C-alpha cells in the first residue's frame, strides 16, 4: 500500500512545481469528482452504521470502480488504477484501513473528501501544520490549535500552545464531528511530510537533510587537505600548455585525423610496435615518466637505455608489480613469490634498492598477498626512476637518437573527391586475433631475454660443451 501511495505522492510532489497543465488537470479532476457524487447520475451511496451514530454518504469500492468503468468506457483495471489515484491524491478517502491509500474492488467503504481538503497547487500543506496535527493526534476537533507558519523558530511552535486552543468542534453534532475528524485525518495521511523529514520548518529537499550527518559531513570536509586555487590553477595551466598541441581537438593530427579524412595513416604510424615512432609521440614521452611508461613503445626505448646503464631492475620490478595488480586472482600468490625471490629477498638476483621501512612493510604484506601489496614499493621505485633515471634518459644518446630518427609525416591535403574515395576504401584494420598473437610472441621473447641468467645451467652447458 505504501508503495502505491508513495508512487503517486512522489508524482504529486514532482508536479507541484509545474503550473498550467497541472491546474487544468485539477479542474478536470474536480469536475469529475463532482460528477461522481451527483445525486442522480453519480455513485449510489449508503449509510455507515457506527456504534454511536449513523453517517450517511458512504460508497463501496466496487461501486466506484464500476461507475468509473462505465463513465470512462475503459477496463476495470484502468478504473481501479484511476480510483487508487483518487485516493492517493485525497479526493476520496477510505474508512477502513485509513493508512492504506488504495481503491479496492470490493465492499471496502469510502467517502468523498470535503473540497476544503482537496489537493491544490496554491496551498501546499505545511510540515509545521502537520506537526501540529500529529501532536494532537486523533483527539481531533476538540484541540484545534493554530500555529505560526514556516520561517519561525522551533520554539515559536510552542508559542502557539499558549492559549490558542478552541473548543469549536464540541458544539457540532456527533456525526459531523466524526466526519470532520475523518476528513482531517485523511488529509494529513495524504499530505504528511515524507519519511526522513528532519526539519519541518525548511521546505523542499532541504527538509530531508539530517542535521547530525550533515554536520559530520562538513566536519570531514574541513579536515580534508586543501590546496590554494592559485596552485591548482597553475597546475592546470601548465598541463594545458604542455598538451595543447597534442590534443586532436585543438591541434591537427599528423598526417590527418582519421575520423575526419577516413585515412588511417595516423593509426598505422602510431601502432604499438613500429620501428620508428612519430616526432609527436617521442615529444610526448618527454612530458613525464608516466607518459613514457604508459606508451609501450616508449617503455621499450626506455628499456634499451636502462640496459646500457645496467639498471633495469627498477623498471622490471615496476612492470612485475603492474602485472600483479592487473592479473588474475589465481596467479597472484605465484607471482608474489616470484617477485619476492627475484627482487626483494636478500641476495636476490635483481634486488631493488628501496628504503628499509618500505621493504619491511612489503615483505610482511607478501605473507598474505593481494593485488595492491606492492603498491608502496612500486610507488617508491617509480619515484626513484622519475627523479633520477628519467632525466638522464632524456639527455641520453638513446633518446636523442630516436628523436632524430622519428618520423614527421607531411600533412594530408585531400580534395573533396579524394575524401569521398577515402570513405569508400576504408581499411578494416588488422584482425584483433593477429594482434594478440603478435603480442604473445613479443611477450615470450621479452621474458626469455629478461630472465636472470641461471648460473648453474650456464655452468652445466659449459661443462657439457667441454
Amino acid at each position, binding site marked *: 500500500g505504501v508503495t502505491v501511495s508513495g508512487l503517486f505522492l512522489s508524482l504529486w510532489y514532482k508536479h507541484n512545481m509545474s503550473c498550467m497543465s497541472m491546474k487544468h488537470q485539477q479542474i478536470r479532476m474536480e469536475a469529475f469528482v*463532482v460528477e461522481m*457524487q451527483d*445525486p442522480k447520475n453519480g455513485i449510489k451511496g449508503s449509510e*455507515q452504521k*457506527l456504534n454511536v*451514530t449513523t453517517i*450517511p454518504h*458512504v460508497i463501496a469500492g466496487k461501486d466506484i470502480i464500476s461507475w468509473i468503468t462505465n463513465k470512462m468506457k475503459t477496463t476495470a483495471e484502468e478504473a481501479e488504477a484511476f480510483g487508487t489515484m483518487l485516493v492517493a491524491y485525497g479526493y476520496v478517502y477510505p*474508512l*477502513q484501513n*485509513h493508512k492504506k491509500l488504495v481503491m479496492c474492488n470490493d465492499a471496502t467503504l469510502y*467517502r*468523498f*473528501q*470535503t*473540497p*476544503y*481538503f482537496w489537493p*491544490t497547487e*496554491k*496551498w501546499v500543506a505545511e510540515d509545521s501544520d502537520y506537526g501540529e496535527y500529529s*501532536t494532537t493526534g*486523533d*483527539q*481531533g476537533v*476538540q*484541540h*484545534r*490549535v*493554530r*500555529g*505560526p507558519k514556516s*520561517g519561525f*523558530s522551533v*520554539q*515559536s511552535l*510552542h*508559542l*502557539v*500552545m*499558549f*492559549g*490558542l486552543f*478552541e*473548543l*469549536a468542534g*464540541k*458544539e*457540532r*453534532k456527533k*456525526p*459531523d*464531528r*466524526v*466526519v*470532520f*475528524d*475523518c476528513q*482531517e*485525518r485523511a488529509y494529513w495521511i495524504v499530505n504528511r511530510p515524507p519519511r526522513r523529514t528532519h526539519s519541518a520548518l525548511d521546505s523542499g529537499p532541504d527538509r530531508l537533510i539530517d542535521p547530525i550527518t550533515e554536520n559530520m559531513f562538513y566536519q570531514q570536509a574541513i579536515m580534508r587537505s586543501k590546496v590554494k586555487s592559485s596552485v591548482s590553477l597553475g597546475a592546470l595551466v601548465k598541463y594545458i600548455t604542455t598538451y595543447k598541441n597534442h590534443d586532436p581537438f585543438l591541434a591537427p593530427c599528423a598526417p590527418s585525423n582519421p575520423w575526419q579524412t577516413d585515412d588511417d595513416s595516423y593509426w598505422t604510424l602510431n601502432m604499438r610496435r613500429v620501428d620508428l615512432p612519430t616526432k609527436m609521440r617521442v615529444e610526448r614521452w618527454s612530458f613525464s615518466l608516466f607518459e613514457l611508461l604508459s606508451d609501450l613503445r616508449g617503455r621499450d626505448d626506455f628499456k634499451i637505455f636502462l640496459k646500457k646503464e645496467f639498471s633495469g631492475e627498477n623498471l622490471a620490478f615496476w612492470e612485475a608489480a603492474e602485472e600483479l595488480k592487473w592479473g588474475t586472482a589465481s596467479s597472484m600468490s605465484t607471482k608474489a613469490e616470484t617477485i619476492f625471490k627475484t627482487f626483494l629477498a636478500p641476495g636476490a638476483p635483481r634486488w631493488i634498492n628501496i628504503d628499509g621501512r618500505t621493504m619491511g612493510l612489503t615483505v610482511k604484506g607478501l605473507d598474505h598477498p593481494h593485488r595492491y601489496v606492492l603498491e608502496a614499493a612500486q610507488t617508491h621505485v617509480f619515484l626513484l626512476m622519475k627523479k633520477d633515471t628519467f632525466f638522464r634518459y632524456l639527455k641520453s644518446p638513446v633518446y636523442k637518437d630516436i628523436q632524430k630518427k622519428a618520423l614527421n609525416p607531411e600533412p594530408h591535403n585531400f580534395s573533396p573527391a579524394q575524401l569521398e574515395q577515402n570513405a569508400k576504401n576504408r581499411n578494416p584494420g588488422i584482425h584483433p586475433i593477429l594482434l594478440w598473437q603478435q603480442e604473445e610472441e613479443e611477450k615470450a621473447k621479452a621474458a626469455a631475454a629478461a630472465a636472470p641468467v641461471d648460473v648453474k645451467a650456464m655452468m652445466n652447458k659449459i661443462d657439457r660443451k667441454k
Partner: protein
Amino acid sequence: MSRWRRSVDELAARRRQQAECERAQDALGRVTSCFQQLAASLGSSADGSFLRDELDETRAVAHRICRGLARRLLRLLSDCDSTPSGVEDRRVSERLWVLFLSALENFLSDLHKASDLIGQFPLTQRCDRRSLVNTGCVDGVVGVASRVASVQVPWLTLEEESRPDLTNHMAGLEVMLAEMQLKVPVAFWSVEATQPAWAEAAGDPDDPDDSLERLMEVQLPNRQLAACCCWPA
C-alpha cells in the same frame, strides 16, 4: 509628579494593555479556528446560505478584533523602555506581536482557501446544490456559530468598524501584515515560548470516549466490538 510615580503608572498601564491584548489574542484564536471549521464545510453537503452567512459573520468579528489588536500592539511596541523591567515587558509585547502575526498569516491563508472554494461552488441557483460534494456532513455548524457569538473582546462593542467583503478583507490583511512588519522590527527567532507544548491539549477530561477510533466502533453480529477504521493486519 515625581519620575518614579510616573514610571510606576506607565508600567501599570502597559501591563493592563498587555493583558487586554492577550485576551484579544485568545479570542482571535477561537474565532479563526471557528472560521476554519466553517470553511471546511464549503463545497460539501453541509454548505448553504446559512453556512456562508456564518462565515461572513465570523470574518467580520475577526476583522474587528484584528484592527483593534493591531493598533494596540503597534502602540505597545512603539515606545521603548530600557529599564530592566522594561526589557521584560518588551519581551512579553514581542511575544504577543509574534503570536498575532502568526494568527494573521494563518487566517489569511484560510481566507484565500475559502475564497477559492466559494468561487468553485457558487450557490447562486438551486441546481448548484447538485454539485455540492456528499461528504457525510449534514449540518453541524450551528454550534460553531454560537461559539463565535460568545467571544468577548474589550473593544468589540466600543468601535464601529466597516464590514469589508472577502476580497477587500484579504487585501486589507495583506497590507496590514506588510505594514506592521515594516513599522516594528521584531526578530521572530528571538521570541521564546512560555509554556510547554500542548499544555492545554493534555488536560481536558471532559470527553474521554472521543478518540476517533472509539467513535468509529461498530457492533459485529457476534456482539464483539470492532474498530471500523482499522482492519486487523
